[in-house]
């Protein structure tokens, strides 16, 4: 019965509080992406290396992470990390959770990038007699990663949207701030709509930018 009405003055008044949440959301996205990209590369190399027991274990771990909900993984880390002696802030737990979850997807993307390199690149490297390490760091990885940059960009956009889940493990990111304002003032319309609009604008613009990057790559290829 309360009825819907939008109060601009109230909406403006909560912007500073929401902006504090935006900062946390951005930190989580940037740090989570960095972790995911590094771990993803580690998983890829462990798969390539074909080490007995390790490679199958990594494969299973990656499947397991991809096969289960991020929300529960976050809960699990939140409650279990302290019992393992790893007492870190909720934000750090969230970053670890996001990083682990998306590293499983990043690994697949790196793999695709490496597999899609023309065989001639390997042959040329072999012919030139470059050391193996140099082949990877100088020839294969730079090309493979450049080819999959738009897909890695998609991971950042997905992660940005998924940071909203961190609100469930007490991280005061954007959604948590919006909900807190709603619960304190009994006004949910403005905070939740502003939160949604912020997510929408940022991810819409970045998705558009990534799409143009993809098409530009196609033209160049």
């Amino acid at each position, binding site marked *: 019965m309360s009825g819907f009405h939008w109060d601009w003055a109230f909406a403006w008044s909560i912007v500073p509080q929401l902006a504090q949440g935006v900062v946390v959301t951005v930190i989580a996205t940037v740090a989570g992406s960095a972790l995911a990209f590094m771990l993803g590369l580690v998983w890829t190399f462990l798969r390539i290396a074909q080490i007995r027991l390790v490679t199958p274990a990594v494969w299973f771990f990656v499947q397991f992470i991809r096969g289960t909900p991020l929300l529960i993984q976050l*809960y699990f880390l939140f409650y279990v990390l302290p019992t393992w002696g790893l007492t870190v802030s909720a934000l750090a737990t969230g970053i670890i959770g996001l990083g682990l979850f998306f590293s499983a997807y990043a690994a*697949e993307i790196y793999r695709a990038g490496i597999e899609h390199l023309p065989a001639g690149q390997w042959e040329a490297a072999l012919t030139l007699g470059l050391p193996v390490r140099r082949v990877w760091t100088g020839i294969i990885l730079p090309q493979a990663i450049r080819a999959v940059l738009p897909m890695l960009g998609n991971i950042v956009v997905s992660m940005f949207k998924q940071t909203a889940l961190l609100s469930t493990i007490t991280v005061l990111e954007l959604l948590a701030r919006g909900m807190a304002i709603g619960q304190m003032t009994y006004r949910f319309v403005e905070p*939740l709509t502003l939160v949604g609009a912020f997510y929408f604008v940022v991810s819409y613009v970045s998705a558009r930018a990534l799409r143009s990057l993809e098409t530009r790559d196609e033209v160049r290829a």
Partner: protein
Amino acid sequence: MTSPKSLWDFLPFFLGGVPVTLGVTFLAMAVAVPVAVILAIGRKSPHALARWPAGFVIELFRGSSALVQLFWAFYVLPLFGLTLSPLVCGVVVLGLNEGSYMSEVVRAGLDAVPKGQREAAVALGLPPRYRLFRIVLPQALPLMVPPFGNELITMLKFTALVSLVTIQDLSFRASLIGDTLGESGPIFGLTIVVYFVLALILGGLVRLLERAVGRQAGRNVVSVAAPHEARLPAASPLSVPAWALGGGG
């Protein structure tokens, strides 16, 4: 201080969440599939009046966080006078969100129908509606079965969110049990395993369904998965020359 109860005492209550989780998964999927088909057809329509709203819905649901959409539907929609039960709210939001992503799969399926089929239908003078429902869609739908199977498993994981709008699924019950025991680690560890097992079972069922549909062409569509999780074709051995594996490690 210490509760005499252990996790195992709550096991029946916890596993009671399995039918709830699966029920929400299938209900949301039942919303998502028609939504995806309608959105994809709308997006390809020659009429701006159909194309524009479809594009708007797709971008709206893909553009923001599913959890934010869920909370918005749960807390803000009642202020418009639209009070949905938690179940309807969860199923509709998940269905619309996932349907928006799946519309991409449907679009790829529609595009995969050879152009000659459409041209032949035009040459025969079939009306547009007939072309779509009798010629294109019946050929496109079997192609979409494998990617829809992947989406079913995505949906299963997705449903954990509805626990946050008070639906008593696996996640909700796990939180409750954790609070009661005062120790949440073990129950959430168990919850992850249960979700994984459910995903394996659903994955197996989907593969049986694929075999039943039995169209080799369907394989081509798998790679055109929705981009929100940057999915790629299933694992295969890496094609890296053997000499590049030696050395450094």
